[in-house]
């Protein structure tokens, strides 16, 4: 197998996706502006509530909430681009031509996920700069915290593959998972500490990897190191997610191939 072809395929998807994004000028502007508006709102909210939450969030509430939304957005974009990849091509009618390449379907799915990663990266830089230079909220970002963020993104991609597979068979599954994924904002400590949740809800937070991604990022920014436990959890979640993701994708594709649901031209 000639591995050299994969970077070329990935590059083709990246170029295509950025050309497509650029072709919708208003959407492109919104893609750039939305994270700035988001980080501004939460930075102001954090500063407003700064004094009231000092016991709960020693580093300052503004830093706490801005770290939360930056990490959250980074993970969310990666998850959605991976999960939407196949369904989107089916929806616009280009799936057959993507499928006809002599490689596993995982290649275009991963390429689309990586394309989403570049958007995550751009939004991350924007939000970081606005927080740091407009609102004076120092995030103490180091290369380790950035690497941990990438690890967190990777740990969630496998779960994106699960949805990508299910979406081939069940066209509306995306809506269900959108609701579930957004509920993670409540459970995982994006806007407030998990310790503030009702006790029953805290049990739920403990089994969601995003909780540990956020905790690791905050520790990294506050103390300059990443707890080994959080790295381990991210790696384990990533491996489990990837195994489940690949298995689900495979099973769903096989079922779709049997039932004729893969390509309905």
């Amino acid at each position, binding site marked *: 197998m000639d591995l050299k072809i994969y970077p*070329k395929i990935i590059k*083709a998807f990246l170029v295509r996706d950025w050309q497509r994004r650029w072709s919708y000028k208003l959407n492109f502007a919104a893609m750039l502006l939305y994270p700035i508006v988001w980080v501004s709102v939460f930075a102001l909210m954090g500063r407003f509530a700064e004094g009231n939450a000092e016991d709960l969030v020693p580093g300052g509430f503004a830093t706490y909430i801005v770290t939360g939304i930056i990490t959250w957005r980074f993970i969310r974009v990666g998850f959605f681009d991976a999960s939407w990849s196949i369904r989107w091509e089916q929806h616009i*009618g280009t799936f057959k031509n993507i499928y006809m390449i002599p490689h596993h379907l995982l290649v275009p799915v991963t390429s689309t996920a990586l394309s989403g990663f570049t958007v995550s990266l751009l939004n991350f830089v924007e939000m970081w700069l606005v927080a740091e230079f407009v609102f004076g909220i120092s995030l103490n970002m180091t290369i380790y915290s950035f690497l941990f963020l990438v690890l967190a993104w990777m740990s969630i991609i496998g779960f994106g593959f699960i949805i990508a597979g299910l979406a081939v068979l069940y066209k509306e599954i995306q809506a269900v998972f959108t609701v579930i994924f957004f509920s993670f904002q409540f459970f995982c400590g994006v806007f407030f500490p998990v310790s503030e949740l009702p006790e029953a809800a805290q049990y739920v937070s403990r089994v969601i990897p995003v909780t540990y991604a956020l905790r690791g990022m905050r520790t990294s920014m506050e103390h300059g190191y990443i707890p080994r436990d959080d790295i381990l959890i991210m790696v384990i979640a990533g491996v489990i997610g990837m195994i489940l993701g690949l298995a689900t994708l495979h099973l769903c594709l096989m079922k779709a191939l049997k039932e004729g649901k893969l390509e309905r031209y």
Partner: protein
Amino acid sequence: MTIEVTNLRKKFDDTQALKGISFQVDDGEIFGLLGPNGAGKTTTVKILATMLLSDSGEAKIKGMNVVEKPKKVRGLVDVITARDKFYRRLDAYQNIKFFSSIYEVEDWKVKMKEYGERLGLEEKDFEKKLADYSTGMRQKLNLIRNLIRKTPILFLDEPTLGLDPVSSRKFRSLLKEVMEEEQKTVIFTSHNMYEVEEICERIAIMNQGEITMRGEPKELKDQIYPKRMIEFSYLDGIKKPKFKNEYVEKVETKGENVRVIIESGDGEHVHEVIQDILDSGGIRNLSVKEPTLEEAFIRHTGDEEEVSTEEIDWT
């Protein structure tokens, strides 16, 4: 043998889409699958293109089983349908560049221009976004996408569906020309008899998941509907003459135009009837016609419609 299909079966819920079909396609041959909607043509193509799994039977492309080696098979085949799409917001260059990259094609731009010239797409067309393309232009670009890829095997699944008659005819003639030049092995599916007859060297007629007949278009027509038709018109003001010939099965008239159906395609019979018609005098525009594949097909599938014509008075 490039394509070998043996006893292929496929069932969707309660519908048996394929009931054990078998056929073979030679290298460089243009093979037609002809049949009404729901006959199983698209199901067959999808199985061969690794987009669908059969319940039983075997399909091989260049000796490779499509189930066992799907990725290798996809490297050899391509499918063109009328519903194929591109990225609407990207121009033709951007679209073809993307697909060429993922199909691992070098020199895509040179090839694109070359095929564009032949298919009637100019450079300025390639700069247009796909959203501004007509259906005919999109289908031409679709063909260019495949030709650049240069797969030795091509499945054309009702590729002219939705095209107007003029575009459809142009597209067909381009297809035939290019397929023959490129020496591609082609399976062409359609419910349109004219295009199958025009393009294909050999045809299998499918109906309700089965291949009911196969052969060259002419053979099939002779087998199903071995008739010949003589058509002519009476000269203005000439009283319709009477003639009789034992080989004439039916005579249909519409105004001054007459169609004589002869019960057998035998040359001597045809000659004899022509002589009788000529002897009766006062005629013009005489021609001998074979039945079209459509007439043969309609007769074969049993959906023959009554032609409302005035029968000539023999007595």
